[in-house]
């Protein structure tokens, strides 16, 4: 804001320039960021007690990197996120295209069914996965990596792909159907027209959906907690067991790494889809309803 603008009193509706609201924004920002920033700062603190600053150190990062079970859990999380993202994008995009392109009996039922994984409490879905993989489809424990992660990947796809479908559908709404018809008039098959005309149009939403699915997968604790076996520990599950045990700077260090990864992913999402990627799938389902 330039100095000349500042001198004019705020116009009636320029609420952002009124000091009570500005002060409130500052308070809320401190509330949201204070705990996270202090967590990150104290990961460099040379003290076990974690409260008073005793000087800069990287030893807890070293410790975290030498903690083989933590590294394994981190690797598991990334692997699960990778595969669940891949599958979620394909399945979610298919669901979005079917709902956008076709009229069929039971369409609104399918649409409503897709919304259920988004709204059902995580704990209920976690419990469902626990029962499913215990009784219906027991997942063998001693499979080679990464097949041993299959159960968790399946569970993650189940809650991620409906979000991808929402994002892709929002993008499809702006597609001009005549383009696809033109492609078909020019001799393209249904499939060719879909892959060469529709898919390129929705590509940004595929990337945004992928980043969303990736973050959802990395973020999930509850459902993984119920699906994971003793040999398939993910990063959040591992951190959870460490936190239960004690609050250590090592957890701070590991958390800081994950926060940095998340922030980088968010900026990637921004780059690909502008600010709408920020709110993808989290705007109260407004995109679905309208």
């Amino acid at each position: 804001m330039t100095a000349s603008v500042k001198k004019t009193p705020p116009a009636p509706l320029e609420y952002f320039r009124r000091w009570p609201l500005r002060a409130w924004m500052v308070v809320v920002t401190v509330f949201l960021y204070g705990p996270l920033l202090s967590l990150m700062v104290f990961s460099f603190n040379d003290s076990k007690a974690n409260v008073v600053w005793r000087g800069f150190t990287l030893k807890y990062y070293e410790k975290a990197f030498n903690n083989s079970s933590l590294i394994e859990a981190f690797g598991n999380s990334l692997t699960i996120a990778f595969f669940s993202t891949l599958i979620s994008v394909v399945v979610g995009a298919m669901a979005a295209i079917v709902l956008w392109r076709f009229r069929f009996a039971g369409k609104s039922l399918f649409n409503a069914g897709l919304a259920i994984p988004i709204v059902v409490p995580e704990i209920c879905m976690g419990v469902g996965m626990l029962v499913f993989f215990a009784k219906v489809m027991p997942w063998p424990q001693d499979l080679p990596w990464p097949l041993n992660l299959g159960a968790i990947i399946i569970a993650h796809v189940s809650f991620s792909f409906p979000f991808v479908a929402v994002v892709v559908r929002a993008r499809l709404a702006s597609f001009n159907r005549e383009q696809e018809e033109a492609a078909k008039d020019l001799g393209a098959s249904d499939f060719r027209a879909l892959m060469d005309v529709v898919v390129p149009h929705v590509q940004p939403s595929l990337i945004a959906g992928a980043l969303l699915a990736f973050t959802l997968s990395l973020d999930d604790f509850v459902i993984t907690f119920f699906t994971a076996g003793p040999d398939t520990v993910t990063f959040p599950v591992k951190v959870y067991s460490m936190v239960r045990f004690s609050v250590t700077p090592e957890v701070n260090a590991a958390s800081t790494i994950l926060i940095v990864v998340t922030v980088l992913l968010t900026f990637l999402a921004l780059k690909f889809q502008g600010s709408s990627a920020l709110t993808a799938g989290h705007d109260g389902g407004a995109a679905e309803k309208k």
Partner: protein
Amino acid sequence: MEQSWRQAKSMFAAMLSVPLFWLVVFFMVPLGIVWLYSFGENRGLVDIAFTGTWSNYARALEWDNLAIFLKSIGIAAITTALCLVIGFPVALAITFAPEKVKPWLLLLIMLPFWTNLLIRTYALIAVLREQGYINMGYHWGFDIVNGLTGGALGEFHALPLMYNNFAVVFGLVFVNLPFMILPLYSTLDRLDRSLLEASLDLGAGHIRTLFNVVVPMAGAGIASGILITFIPALGSYLTPDLLGGADALMIANVIEAQFKRANNWPFGAALSFLLVYMTFIAIAVQGLIERKPAGSRS
């Protein structure tokens, strides 16, 4: 125009089958089994018999368990109310911010939201615990006052900020606030500003304009913000587990205990489905609220 599925049968079948299969087999079936279990009984250690009994639900509605349900609803309601009060001015400020600043303010609100839930909850432990930042600051200020007045305040006692209902509400507001701000912002951003200007021109103050013009017009957004804050708050597991401790359990913690420690799956299943029903009821109520103003306008 949408195409009838008959015009491209093979493509329709190919595109529908995979998502439908996934939804049914890996989502509906697991939940369906839990639903069936809720009418079952434990037979031995691992076997569960489907007897069609209502006893699990009857037990879930006994006072001890009902109290936890009511308390969970109460905590979720307080959380939602606080999020609304804290979030509304933020949404208002973002709405009327200059266009250039807006995306950055949204990013500011969303960035913590994308951070791992477990890490955010863990970060709060360091703030709230007995040797946490708040108590450290309090102790420091306490000692200064004591030093100046010669010990007038007496002995220092740390504030009990952890392992109680306060910690759970604090944590849930911290975690869920962006859920509230986003739908509020997207509604406020679409408001017809000339109506606000008219109200101000006609002599109403800012506060009056806010309550008589902005709030009624943003009703649908407020309702959807309340809903998407309330639902995850009601079913939250991690926050009460890490910050609440034994005295501040919520319904999800009881469900987890039934499935993992108590090994009473049928009872846990009944509790889960009561939670699912409550979620659906909340959605239905919101749907009714949303429909009403639309109906009266047309």
